[in-house]
């Protein structure tokens, strides 16, 4: 009996750490009770919501709206009141091209180079990313020994910081790097991959796939595991060929997850920045200059920074992202409808 009592009165380490927190929370309680008496329970809801909405309003909503104002002003001044109104001037500067297929014919040639690069990047990266993560998910969905190990293996780069990812690969692709070492074994001469326009572009695609593939693989794997096994058993009994089973069972039932993944990959690919900035810095030349980096450099890093132009470019990018998101919503609605009809 005595032991029990002493056990109850002694404090664990966690409780000791929590003591000052408890004390503080008790202190706050008194003025808050007073507040509650003034405003009623409904007022307390506002109180709880307020800090989050305040931060939200100041750092997300407000910038979102004044971004439009920024895009219609010119000059190098930072604060909106000091800037002069130019109307659609920044947009017409961005779109001032004699031939839209040739960036060099544009007033803002780097913008169109960035748009072109981002376009190619998105097409290539999204296709390959979906392909690789689908194959990986299908393989991980098989009856494997140590599946959680393999899953973790493909997933771990997702948590690495983009800077670390960029540096790891910069170190591998440089002249004395691992890749050249491997190829040297086959008799190739060392090559500075990141100094080559095409190879550095390929490297940004490959590295971003390496870094994020595991995340999409997980979503697809979850979708695959939700498909009832008896469907396959029934198909096997009917003598269905595996390829047909894949096309008729796996793909249709995986479609919702696949759609989510495609749109997520698309949205992230359009905004690609961090890894690429560290890996190639947009170079050599402008061969891996993508949209976010263009906005960053125009708005912040350039000698003559032009916040208005950067804002206009960022709004154009925002429009693309909104269209992609709405596309996803529309597609997932229609696929739900189709599912309902069955």
């Amino acid at each position, binding site marked *: 009996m005595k032991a029990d009592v002493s056990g109850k009165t002694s404090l664990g380490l966690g409780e000791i750490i929590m003591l000052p927190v408890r004390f503080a*929370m008790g202190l706050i*309680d008194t003025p*808050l009770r007073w507040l509650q008496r003034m405003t009623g329970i409904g007022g*307390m809801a*506002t109180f*709880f*919501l307020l*800090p*989050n*909405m305040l*931060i939200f309003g100041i*750092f*997300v*909503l*407000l*910038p*979102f709206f*004044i*971004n439009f104002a*920024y895009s219609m002003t010119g000059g190098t001044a*930072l*604060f909106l009141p000091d800037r002069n109104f130019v109307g659609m001037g920044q947009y017409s500067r961005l779109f001032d091209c004699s031939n839209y297929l040739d960036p060099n014919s544009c007033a803002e040639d780097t913008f169109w180079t960035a748009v072109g690069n981002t376009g190619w990047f998105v097409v290539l990266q999204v296709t390959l990313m979906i392909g690789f993560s689908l194959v990986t998910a299908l*393989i991980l969905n098989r009856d*494997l*020994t140590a599946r959680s190990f*393999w899953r*973790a293996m*493909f*997933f*771990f780069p997702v*948590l*690495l*910081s*983009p*800077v*670390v990812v960029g*540096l*790891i690969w910069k*170190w*591998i692709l440089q*002249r*004395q790097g*691992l890749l050249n*070492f491997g190829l*040297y074994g086959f008799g190739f001469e*060392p090559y500075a991959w990141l100094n080559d326009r095409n190879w550095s572009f390929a490297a940004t695609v490959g590295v971003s796939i*390496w870094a994020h593939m595991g*995340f999409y693989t997980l*979503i697809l794997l*979850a979708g695959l595991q939700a498909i009832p096994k008896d469907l396959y058993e029934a198909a096997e009994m009917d003598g269905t060929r595996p390829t047909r089973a894949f096309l008729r069972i796996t793909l249709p039932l995986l479609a919702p997850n696949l759609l989510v993944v495609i749109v997520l990959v698309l949205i992230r690919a359009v905004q690609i*920045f961090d890894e690429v*900035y560290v890996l190639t*810095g947009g170079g050599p030349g402008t061969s891996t200059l993508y*949209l976010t980096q263009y906005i*960053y450099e125009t708005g*912040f890093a350039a000698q003559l920074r032009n916040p208005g132009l950067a*804002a206009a470019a*960022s709004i154009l*990018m*925002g429009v693309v992202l909104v269209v992609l998101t709405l596309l996803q919503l529309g597609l997932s609605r229609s696929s739900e409808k189709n599912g309902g009809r069955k």
Partner: protein
Amino acid sequence: MSRVAQFLFRRKGGKGWHWTDIVTWVWLVGGLFIMFGPAVWLVGSSFKSPAALAEFPPTILPYVTQKVTVEGFDKPLDLYEVTLPDGSKGKLAEVRRIGVVGQMINPSNPGKVIKVNISQRTPVRAMSFASGNYTEPFTHFDFVRYLWNSVFVTVVATLITLVVNSMAAFALSKYEFRGRTIAMLLILATLMVPLSVIMVPLYSIVSALGLFNNLWGVILPTVATPTGVFILRQYMLTIPDELVDAARMDKASEWQIYWRIILPLTAPALAVLAIFSVVWRWNDFLWPLIVLSRKELYTLQVGLSIYSGELNVQWHFILAMTVVTMIPVVLVFIFLQRFITTGIAGTGLK
């Protein structure tokens, strides 16, 4: 062993090799090299001396040419294994090299210079971990400052995120009030407004608040995460409202209900958000890069990228610092791997 063999040669249905078995095997073994190879290579390289890093072909493990100090020479000399013209072998130190001929001396008898063709000598090498790569950045690069800045940003931002998001989630899940749906929609809509779209005006707002070149300027814009509010609200919706009503009967204040009842019950969801938040804030790059321009304020990520972009990259330091930067995230991953992977599969969040 038999388990390994059984695994290696497992086939579909046990009826001989199906092509999918081969693809699986190739994919997983290839994945092993492609996924882990770069990280292993990074860690191996981070222990190499600058001279070893400049070598080609490189070695996986850090090897260093042995050096000896010989009387009469100021600098330590490289030690070589030499085959002498008479066929005998010995360890000699090289004084200088002229063309294809090295002038070597015997360290124990430095008086006599022996001329050796360089094809007849191989450097004596031994494994050596250049731990200086890890210790010197602390004095060279203000590395401690960057580490501290990163830790500060991560911890403070995560704590504020937990408090602010859980309060909002509490209001959105346990109260009926006008504008609740609008508030929720507003929060979710901001998922569509990524940093890259609003960075110009956000920068001006942060500057106007005097938070440019201030770690709080990095922290504050990130704390009101829509995903956090969403996760916590979904979780709080599963807590029965009767608990809240019963507490009100017992004259508990609304703050007490939040603090004493709802928060402890939301602990699992709070833990998930805390883990995500730590990883997000630790890895943040673009926003700190914009807000922080003074060296002593850099976070690890910004410091690393700036130093790796310099003209003369001191790779031996950069690699070691990269490894240190990886450590917290790798630890989180090792301990919570199963938890994270199943959690992401369930919610689709990153």
